[in-house]
């Protein structure tokens, strides 16, 4: 610390205790000792000779504490906060598993022969555009997240958290759909990926008004009634999934994303 050190006489007076030293000198010496190893060493070597009672006290304390200190184990090193809950909603796992089960079911239907009389449309193609949407909704819907009430009152609640959770849900579902599509060879990624993203952003956009869960349910119902059911009946590739309709889906995606951005504050606002 400093270039000046305590003299042996000063340390001796400190060791003897009593009222030899004024209080401010004691205070200054202790402050110096805290930061100066050579002076502490000087003090330690002087203790047994100058103050045997102090040395005895220190030894007895050490002897008494010894067994406890041996028994004490250092606290385990705390791992940092897991990244997983920061991204995925902690309650979403069962819903993601359900989504994967739906994919497997569609895959099984697909491979077990044509489900419709004409055999032209894979059932996988009918669930693929709405499945990521369901996974995203499950990550945010108040009814499915048990801690929603707690989350809603925290500063992180809002669009960034919603987007994190949506991204995590999509990251779990989309690769499986891609793999399934590649496995059957009947479904080009372009055919369903853009529609599914468009559906997801639309659900988030509508969700700023009516809640993501309700918006997702409405979109799935519309899809089932307007597209999936007719296809099931007729077996023709639905008009909306034809490659020439992709610009329309891109437009819907852009509109949804723009709405989400414009209403970004609504996700954190208290409910009415």
């Amino acid at each position, binding site marked *: 610390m400093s270039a000046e050190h305590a003299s042996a006489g000063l340390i001796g007076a400190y060791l003897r205790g009593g009222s030899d030293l004024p209080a401010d000198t004691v205070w200054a010496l202790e402050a110096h000792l805290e930061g100066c190893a050579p002076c502490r060493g000087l003090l330690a070597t002087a203790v047994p000779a100058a103050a045997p009672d102090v040395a005895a006290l220190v030894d007895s304390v050490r002897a008494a504490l010894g067994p406890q200190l041996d028994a004490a184990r250092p606290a385990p090193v705390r791992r940092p906060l897991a990244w997983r*809950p920061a991204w995925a909603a*902690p309650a979403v796992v069962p819903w993601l598993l359900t989504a994967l089960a739906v994919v497997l079911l569609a895959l099984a239907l697909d491979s077990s022969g044509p489900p419709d009389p004409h055999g032209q449309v894979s059932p996988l193609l009918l669930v693929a555009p709405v499945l990521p949407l369901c996974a995203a909704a499950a990550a945010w819907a108040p009814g499915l997240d048990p*801690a929603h*009430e707690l989350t809603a*009152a925290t*500063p992180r609640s809002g669009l960034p958290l919603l987007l994190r959770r949506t991204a995590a849900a999509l990251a779990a579902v989309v690769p499986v759909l891609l793999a399934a599509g590649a496995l059957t060879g009947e479904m080009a990624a372009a055919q369903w990926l853009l529609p599914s993203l468009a559906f997801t952003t639309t659900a988030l956009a509508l969700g700023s008004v009516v809640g993501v869960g309700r918006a997702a349910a409405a979109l799935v119902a519309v899809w089932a009634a307007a597209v999936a059911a007719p296809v099931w009946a007729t077996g023709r590739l639905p008009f909306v999934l034809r490659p020439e309709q992709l610009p329309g889906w891109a437009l819907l995606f852009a509109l949804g994303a723009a709405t989400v951005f414009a209403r970004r504050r609504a996700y954190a606002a*208290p*409910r*009415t």
Partner: protein
Amino acid sequence: MPRAVSAASVAPKTHAWEIRAEGLLVRAGRKKMAVNGLDLALGTGAHGLLGPNGAGKTTLIRALATVLRPAGGELELLGTPAGHAELRALRRRIGYLPQDFGYYRRFTVREFVEYMAWLKEVPKAEIPGAVQRAVERVGLADRADHRMKTLSGGMVRRAGIAQAIVNDPDLLLLDEPTAGLDPAQRLRFRELLQELGRDTCVVVSTHLVEDVAAACSDVVLFADGRLVFQGTPDDLAAAGGPEHPGDSPLERGYSALLRHTEQPGGIW
């Protein structure tokens, strides 16, 4: 030497009341106005929010926690108007324990409180220490690494209290925190409440008059969405006479003050 006190914690207070409501209206569901024209001003201290079932206590607490948007009137929390779009800074200073709070059953107590600390934007380096302190304050240190689903009801509630205080809030809202606690735990909780009430504005909703008497410096009596009475527990006791029903002076005061309010479902 590092500063032991942050600049924010020694900054002068620029608001007169931690909670100030004027003509506050809050809806529960579509139609019912559960808080109906409430005027209230609460400062630092432990405030007991008393009232019969269905008085609107939970709705009021949810509005104070910025979960519900007021349907009308004015509400100012820590000097910031609530319902304002930018709630982030305000929410960092609020602790909230809902009446029936959901949690993730597979999380350990420590993970749960850590996750809530993360959601409350506690600085990352401070999270482990803040979590340990909060868990110790509610007496769950020995259970910190047990999963939430293995805890008893009272322990879950204490874990809920731990998550509410993990960010050292300036405004602490506890909805029925003593439900499910055994008598010894309730005594310990009252001590904690007194401790917290020294530098925090704590609002405890309860229907147990004795909790309020033991731990709160201030009583707010609430019925049919309106303020009936605000004062010290002694004032509440003084309001009752021997002719009013109840087993303790406070209970008699409580019945005396609520005598005039409507009981739409009949007297039970």
